[in-house]
């Protein structure tokens, strides 16, 4: 398919474990975004990449959150020492360039921390 692909779709982890969430953007899309969505709320911005450069990480809630996009394509969001408040849906979006272009979203990873 030509859409944004995220894996896994569901992840259950025990508190304190590390998790890694993967995003495969639309081919050719320069910009990649990560969002966190709580139940009944709109997505909230976490971080932004332009190609391999992480240009904005102001939305990452703590230094336990880390994102990378080493070759300017696939991105990984890593959460270390997970806590219950990290439970949410993590959405990845990509766009051709910048935030003025429509962002196209994957179906997200639902993370549950026990």
């Amino acid at each position, binding site marked *: 398919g030509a859409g*944004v692909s*995220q894996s896994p779709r569901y992840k259950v982890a025990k508190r304190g474990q590390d998790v890694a969430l993967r995003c495969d953007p639309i081919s050719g899309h320069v*910009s990649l*975004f990560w969002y966190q969505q709580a139940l*009944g*709320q*709109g*997505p*909230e*911005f976490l971080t*932004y990449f332009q190609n391999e450069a992480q*240009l*904005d990480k102001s*939305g990452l809630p703590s230094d336990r959150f880390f994102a990378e996009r080493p070759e300017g394509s696939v991105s990984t969001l890593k959460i270390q020492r997970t806590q219950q408040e990290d439970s949410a849906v993590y*959405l990845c*979006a990509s766009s051709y360039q*910048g*935030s*003025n272009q*429509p*962002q*196209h*979203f*994957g*179906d*997200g990873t639902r993370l549950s921390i026990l």
Partner: protein
Amino acid sequence: EDQVTQSPEALRLQEGESSSLNCSYTVSGLRGLFWYRQDPGKGPEFLFTLYSAGEEKEKERLKATLTKKESFLHITAPKPEDSATYLCAVPVGARQLTFGSGTQLTVLP
């Protein structure tokens, strides 16, 4: 502070009963407003971008309009398959989107 507020939070309509969803925003230097549809368990699906006051866009039973302070998503003669959460968002700074909390629309047959 840049804010996006959507109303109502939830809306139940009978099939064929037209209505409008509201998105109000306080952003300095608006550089576009986006409407998305989100189904349960899915990511937001892009619907429209509006860039200037007075602009309108249509897709099937949906029409989006924009003023200097708010946007409306008009739904004409809705069908049950239009049931979803509708989100609006504006770009903040140079990159990220700020989303409203959404309107959960239910269309009853």
